[in-house]
């Protein structure tokens, strides 16, 4: 009898240890990573600047007190059904920002959602999309961010509801929902399509807002990019697939155009969070905006909720 209890205790302890290890970032790297965490060439800050605009880093990491789009001291609250997130200071300040990070730490943050001290980020930071970036692009973005003004000041801790407040769960969440593989070029498709695919599904992280999410906070795969309820309270995010309820009636030129000046084909002006996205995409090249349009128009149409006129 004593032996049985002892074996039971040992089994439970082992299971607990196993679960604990699975929740660490090492397990994620082992099971889901593709090992590409170092850049194969010197960083290019000019490309980093393009990626900074395409990713809209400023839109979440803005310093609330400054309208300067190069000030990324963080702290602007992001209210979601999971609680309030405070995006951190990602300016190159050595104390409060990421000034002392190594490039490897930055790449791991972006591609694996793992902080330098080993804890996992909440996917409000859209690494479920950024994980698809090449390490070269991630290093370029880091090089560019290092040129921005360092700002002091730490942001408040996230104020989340239970069980989302248990950070350890994130390691398991990553194992369950993510792989960390770079988007590879599809050689059967033209280069513009591949560029669009990379921008939309990688750095642009369009699906993070333009898709419905499950209770576990993961994007519902079969409704990816088909629009859904706005994460921040009342409202609705439109369907980007070429369905009748989405961009079905839009031409590629019209999609590229809305990303430049914010006007839809019937001369409505996009609002809500998209207004600031357009301030970012307006900085991209015409070719990049067109690539995004080409990729979106190539998607299988998925029915979403209708857009209101």
């Amino acid at each position, binding site marked *: 009898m004593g032996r049985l209890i002892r074996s039971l205790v040992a089994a439970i302890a082992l299971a607990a240890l196993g679960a604990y290890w699975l929740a660490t970032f090492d397990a994620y790297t082992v099971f889901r990573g593709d090992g590409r965490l170092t850049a194969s060439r010197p960083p290019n800050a000019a490309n980093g600047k393009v990626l900074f605009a395409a990713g809209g880093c400023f839109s979440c990491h803005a310093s609330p007190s400054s309208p300067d789009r190069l000030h990324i001291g963080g702290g602007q609250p992001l209210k979601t059904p999971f609680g309030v997130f405070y995006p951190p200071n990602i300016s190159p300040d050595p104390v409060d920002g990421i000034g002392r990070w190594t490039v490897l730490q930055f790449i791991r943050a972006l591609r694996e959602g793992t902080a330098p001290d080993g804890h996992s980020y909440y996917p409000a930071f859209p690494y479920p999309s950024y994980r698809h970036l090449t390490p070269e692009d991630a290093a370029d973005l880091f090089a560019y961010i290092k040129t921005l003004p360092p700002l002091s000041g730490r942001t408040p801790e996230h104020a989340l509801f239970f069980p989302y407040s248990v950070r350890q769960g994130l390691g398991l969440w990553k194992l369950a929902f993510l792989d960390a593989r770079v988007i590879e070029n599809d050689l059967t498709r033209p280069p513009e399509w591949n560029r669009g695919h990379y921008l939309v599904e990688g750095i642009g992280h369009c699906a993070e807002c333009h898709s419905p999410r499950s209770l576990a906070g993961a994007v519902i795969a079969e409704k990816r990019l088909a*629009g859904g309820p706005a994460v921040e309270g*009342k*409202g609705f995010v*439109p369907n980007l697939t070429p369905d009748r309820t989405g961009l079905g009636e839009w031409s590629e030129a019209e999609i590229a155009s809305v990303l430049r000046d*914010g006007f839809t084909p019937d001369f*409505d002006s996009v609002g809500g969070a998209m207004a600031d996205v357009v301030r970012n995409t307006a900085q991209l090249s015409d070719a990049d905006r067109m690539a995004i349009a080409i990729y979106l128009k190539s998607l299988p149409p998925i029915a979403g909720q209708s857009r*209101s006129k």
Partner: protein
Amino acid sequence: MILRRFVLAFSLSALATVAIASTANIGERQQIMKSNGGATKPVVAMLKGEAPFDLAVVQKSLANYQDNIGKFVTLFPDDSKSGEKTSASPKIWEDMAGFKAAADKFAADAKMASTAITDEASFKSNMPNVLKNCGSCHEAWRVKDPQ
């Protein structure tokens, strides 16, 4: 008994009037925004170089914006917060002064541009400043719901 019926009928008709009033406001708001869109279409085509510059058309659009927005802000009574596919954000009623200030800024920018714009060069340098109001107002004061 008659009195009771009278009261009931009276309250019902009062309710119906309120409902019609709000519906009319929301419909009118939407018409005004459509009219703004219509005024913007030729202007953006000119900015993009897809249509030749036409000063008369530009001035007409700028005048439309000013007329439209002046009327627009008067169409948000408390009973018009919801219904009829409205995309008005609840924030409008929480901060009516801020909402009106944003509308005034749009009207002032349009007015300033109508004085400043005399040729194609002044059009290209002044018009974007007016159009920025579209996005910034929709960013702060509009919430789209699926209908």
